[in-house]
């Protein structure tokens, strides 16, 4: 067994210090979510709907192969990036495009209508109506993390403390070296995206909240919770020094903040440029350029040896 150690060069960088690491990862996450919507629209229009469904299977399978490469790696930073990218691809293809296939083409669901006369197509497309119905499945899955003594997720740890579960669950037996950050980031991205989608969809469901005062109140409360929750997490995020940790923490922060953005867009406070790339070519090109630059900067930024797997024994 050998232990490789390298010099910690993060301290030499004048740029990659708090709060820069947190701010950059948060902005990156916000751009990724927005451009994820754009990517889906472009894929659908470029390949055509039927080809998209077919291609989805293979893109998702390719993402799993990529994930395996990340799982095999000992580099935490690489694991995090690969886990994140693979999850985005799997979510867009195996979840959203598959739901689109079932809702629009297979089951023949009718679009939900909106507007005063009920003659405008609502943004809750058939695939999102199906996604909203997965709330029970989501809650069932979240039980696993609630009762997992080895979880490191702050939200579940908070639940365990508040509900007095920790004594019954016992002490965690895993150290950071036992954790594979590729699969952790992969699952985190999937669950956070799923949770935030369902949260949004339930708040928009007219059967649950109507379309009058209760709808307004629930969505106002959603914006409030989303701002406070993401603001609290952002305040923690900007203290992060390690890029890999910040990147993983930014996934929920960006997604929770996005919930308020979705509500605001529904209220027409913002134009939803993400799903109309043909009308906003310049704007979206600039955002894409900025995203690529941020990714490049994060990749070349100095890392702690532990992030690169250089202190691990092997």
């Amino acid at each position, binding site marked *: 067994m050998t232990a490789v150690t390298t010099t910690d060069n993060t301290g030499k960088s004048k740029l990659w210090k708090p709060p820069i690491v947190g701010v950059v990862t948060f902005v990156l996450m916000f751009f990724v979510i927005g451009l994820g919507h754009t990517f889906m629209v472009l894929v659908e229009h470029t390949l055509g709907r039927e080809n998209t469904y077919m291609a989805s299977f293979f893109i998702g399978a390719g993402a799993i192969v990529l994930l395996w490469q990340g799982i095999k790696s000992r580099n935490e930073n690489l694991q995090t990036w690969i886990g994140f990218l693979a999850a985005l691809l799997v979510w867009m293809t195996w979840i959203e495009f598959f739901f689109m296939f079932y*809702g*629009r*083409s*297979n*089951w*023949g*669901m*009718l*679009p*939900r*209508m909106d507007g005063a006369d*009920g*003659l*405008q*197509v609502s943004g809750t*497309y*058939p695939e999102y*109506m199906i996604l909203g119905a997965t709330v029970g499945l989501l809650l069932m899955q979240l039980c696993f993390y609630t009762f997992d003594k080895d979880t490191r997720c702050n939200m579940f740890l908070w639940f365990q403390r508040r509900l007095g579960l920790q004594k019954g669950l016992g002490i965690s037996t895993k150290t950071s070296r036992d954790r594979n950050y590729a699969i952790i980031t992969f699952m985190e991205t999937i669950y956070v995206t799923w949770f935030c989608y369902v949260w949004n969809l339930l708040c928009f*469901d*007219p*059967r*649950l909240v*109507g*379309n009058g005062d209760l709808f307004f109140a629930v969505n106002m409360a959603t914006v409030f919770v989303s701002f406070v929750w993401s603001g609290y997490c952002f305040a923690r995020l900007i203290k992060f020094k390690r890029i890999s940790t910040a990147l993983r923490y930014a996934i929920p922060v960006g997604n929770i903040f996005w919930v308020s953005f979705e509500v605001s867009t529904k209220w027409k406070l913002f134009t939803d440029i993400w799903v109309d790339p043909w009308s906003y070519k310049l704007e979206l090109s600039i955002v894409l350029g900025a995203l690529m630059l941020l990714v490049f900067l994060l990749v070349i930024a100095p890392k702690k040896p532990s992030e690169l797997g250089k202190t691990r024994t092997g």
Partner: protein
Amino acid sequence: MKIFIKTFAIAASLLLVGNPASAEKLKLPLGMGGVPDIGAISCEVFNNMMVVGPLGTKRSLLTWGEGYFYAKTGKTIDEILEAAQAADQSWDFDRLTAHLVNFCAADPDAQTSAAVVDLGEHLLQQ
């Protein structure tokens, strides 16, 4: 006087019950997809619905049309298609719905009922 009041009361109640302006428009249960009467919307709305729910939307209008054809001829869609086949016309789900979709795509200002009427003219001509 009593007879006058009674007559007035009956007339007033009949007016209130029979007044079409006071009738509420049909609404679907909240959360449900689609529109209450797909035969009474513009082709523009139909075209927008087709983008997001193509299969369900065209199937819904065809079902509306099947009711219309039955009311008009007393024949079910299978009986109509059988007669059409005898006259060397071949129709299936895709061809029937394509007729409706193409009609609406060509004339977004028309009503969807016009698309059904137009389909009927092709189907029932034999």
